[in-house]
């Protein structure tokens, strides 16, 4: 099925930022009609490779060849012109412009006097959506589209450009199972039309489902490129990490204590309705369901950053006021939010300020902060979590994703919570850190913390949780014990139909 000659060759490219070498002498080939996976831990250099292909970064040395001719991809426009389309993890649409215009930007069909032919533009968008089998109104603004729909618009963009190389950087991170299937169907048809696909993901089941070949990177270097038929998942993990891992999901058994978090009749129109459940001390309860089923909204409403219409939340017997994170924190609730960059961290502030922000009031003496106590506290907690950083005064934005997540965890563990809510605790972090996070959650539960975990990764849910609560379209539809919870039972509850995975 693959052509004999590579469509795109990456040859010994290197790229440094200041003193840090992000990518060193990496080479691999992409073939037309083939899907190629690129895997590696966070900080392995995958994103830099993507940005070089996208024309955002120019390689310091080495070359990128298309059809055997060297390309100088100095700007995104160059990459576009060369037929390379990149779909980023976070969609990059123009919220104020119409969907049709988003797709056609820079390639709008022209009519008389080089004016834009709007009718033709809308027609093209509608044709693309028909080909993708989706119904999005080309005339609506991009603002307000769900993440999945935004990804589809991004794919339509790539289609409209007749891209020969399509790079997808973790496109599935925010998608549900059905949406992933839809995306894969489209990706396969692109591949079958002769395009070369490059697919980046942390989920091995997706890689095996879609790709023919896999390139593994570690610490900015190329480790290996193999046919997926020649390599097992375990081998891949070993190559990525460079060492063997312990059990991925080490939940210890703990006898559940008293009810720590009690939620009754929580509703917020139109996001979720009548949600009731308990979490006991020492328990890890997973909140599963498709993206968009209202899980994150429920936990944000419990914590008080989102409002709620009706319902009560009790923490160790104390009723929480709606809409007040401050009071929730005082009662012993901590929330590690879904979106690390936007919600979890202040990227431009220092590590110490981030760690101690929620506790700045309790660390103050007579209302004043001199900085010493904050520094001590930040040092203590970052060390406990084995966070790697240069100085505490460095911007948290300079850390890798995994270490950033550790800072978020440190920040909340420092508040000594009775109820710890974690929303997608391991999204976008590498395998090694993932295991550390899991171990940490498990030991917290063992110390009597009630843990409520929102996760889209089924293995994580099944491995970690004592109980699984499943949400569908804003309602709690199932509660499964550890013994009852399987991939099938959870997916069945989440989708309301037989799982197709």
């Amino acid at each position: 099925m693959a052509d004999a000659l590579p469509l795109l060759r990456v040859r010994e490219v290197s790229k440094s930022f200041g003193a840090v070498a992000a990518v060193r002498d990496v080479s691999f080939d992409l073939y037309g009609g083939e899907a190629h996976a690129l895997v590696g831990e966070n900080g392995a250099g995958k994103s830099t490779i993507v940005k070089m292909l996208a024309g955002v970064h120019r390689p310091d040395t080495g070359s990128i060849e298309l059809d055997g001719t060297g390309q100088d991809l100095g700007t995104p426009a160059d990459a576009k012109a060369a037929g390379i389309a990149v779909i980023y993890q976070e969609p990059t649409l123009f919220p104020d412009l119409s969907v049709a215009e988003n797709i056609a930007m820079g390639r709008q069909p022209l009519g008389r006097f080089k004016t834009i032919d709007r009718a033709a533009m809308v027609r093209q968008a509608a044709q693309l959506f028909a080909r993708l089998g989706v119904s999005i109104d080309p005339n609506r603004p991009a603002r307000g589209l769900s993440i999945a729909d935004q990804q589809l618009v991004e794919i339509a963009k790539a289609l409209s450009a007749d891209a020969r190389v399509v790079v997808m950087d973790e496109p599935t991170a925010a998608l549900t199972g059905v949406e992933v299937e839809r995306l894969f169907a489209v990706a396969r048809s692109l591949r079958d039309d002769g395009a070369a696909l490059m697919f980046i993901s942390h989920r091995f089941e997706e890689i095996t489902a879609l790709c023919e070949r896999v390139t593994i990177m570690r610490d900015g270097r190329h480790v290996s490129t193999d046919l997926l038929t020649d390599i097992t998942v375990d081998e891949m993990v070993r190559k990525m990490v460079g060492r063997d891992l312990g059990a991925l999901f080490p939940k210890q058994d703990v006898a559940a204590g008293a009810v720590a978090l009690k939620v009754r009749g929580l509703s917020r129109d139109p996001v979720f309705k009548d949600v009731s459940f308990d979490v006991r001390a020492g328990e890890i309860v997973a909140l599963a369901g498709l993206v968009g089923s209202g899980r994150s909204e429920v936990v944000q409403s419990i914590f008080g950053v989102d409002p709620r219409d009706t319902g009560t939340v009790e923490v160790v017997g104390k009723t929480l006021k709606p809409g007040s994170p401050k009071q929730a924190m005082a009662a012993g609730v901590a929330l590690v939010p879904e979106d690390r960059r936007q919600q979890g961290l202040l990227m431009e502030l220092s590590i110490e300020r981030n760690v101690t922000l929620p506790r700045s009031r309790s660390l103050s003496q007579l209302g004043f902060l001199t900085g010493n106590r904050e520094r001590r506290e930040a040092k203590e907690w970052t060390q406990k979590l084995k966070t790697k950083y240069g100085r505490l005064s460095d911007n948290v934005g300079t850390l890798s994703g995994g270490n950033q997540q550790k800072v978020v965890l440190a920040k909340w563990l420092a508040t000594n919570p009775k109820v710890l809510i974690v929303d997608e605790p391991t999204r976008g972090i590498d395998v090694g850190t993932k295991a550390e996070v899991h171990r940490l959650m498990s030991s917290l539960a063992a110390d009597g913390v009630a843990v409520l975990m929102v996760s889209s990764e089924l293995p994580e849910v099944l491995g970690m949780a004592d109980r699984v609560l499943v949400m569908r379209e804003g309602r709690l539809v199932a509660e499964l014990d550890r013994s009852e919870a399987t991939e099938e039972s959870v997916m069945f509850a989440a989708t309301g139909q037989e799982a197709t995975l």
Partner: protein
Amino acid sequence: MSATESAVVSRFANWNAAIIAITVIVLIVAAASVDSFGTSQNFGFLVLDLLPIALVALPMTLVIVTGEIDLSVASTLGLSSAVMGYLWNANQPIETIIPLCLLLGAVLGAVNGFFVTVLGLPSLAVTIGTLALYRGLAFVVLGDSAVADFPTVYTDWVTGSIGGTPIPNVLIIIVVLAIVFGVILHATPIGRAVFAVGASEQAARFAGVRPGRVKFWLYVASGLISGLAGVLWTLRYSSARADNGAGLELAVVAAVLLGGVSIFGGKGALPGVIAGVVLLGSLQNALRLSDVSNEALNVVTGVLLIASVLGPNLVNRLRRT
């Protein structure tokens, strides 16, 4: 690049330190080369001249650190002055008028705060709106007339100095408020919240900070201090007028940015801002004493303003390559 070199560069890239150094150098050069710049009388004039900018720049720093802006300060000053004149003409006791003007300032600030935090409107647009609105109301209150004859006890205090020393009385107000705002910004949980809101409002909210509340009270503080500046302005010139302080907002914003506060929020320090205010004020004073025209000052202000952001940016770029 060697280690020492990069240390020097990073020192320079810290604009806060740079601006303080520049200010000190300018003060020394001016004192040495401009006749009568260093006299105690001139020091008094200098302090009085930069009084309103110094006061208003304090809350403005905090507002800009949260990523917002308040362009209505000069109009609040004007309205406070106009109301002061109106009430004085209506034969109200000055001891009632002054607290009322401060209260008025706080209320005007609260109006800004309401539009920005409760309705969620962009502060640039809101405060351009209230800039026109408050100034307009000042003219409605007092028209084009001027009210004078404020009690000499008060006007003398404002223009006077601490018994026998060359230290102007109003310097006490500046110093006290600068310490208050400095401590709030750099050494209290409120200050941490201010920086957090400026760095990312959403993340701050997820850390239990109430951005709306923080910003609202900052606007109230901004209004209150502008009201105070209006009172002091009126007493200094013994003249309440609707156009008092017109255009001051740009000078204040310029001083704050010159002091190294990022217009995008999340970064800045009060000592730098004080240095920025002193730098602009003393440059103006020294140039005027040297018979250099106002125009030169305009150009210098503009260039410094751009340089305050451009300089560190260029240094960073050089360092990267």
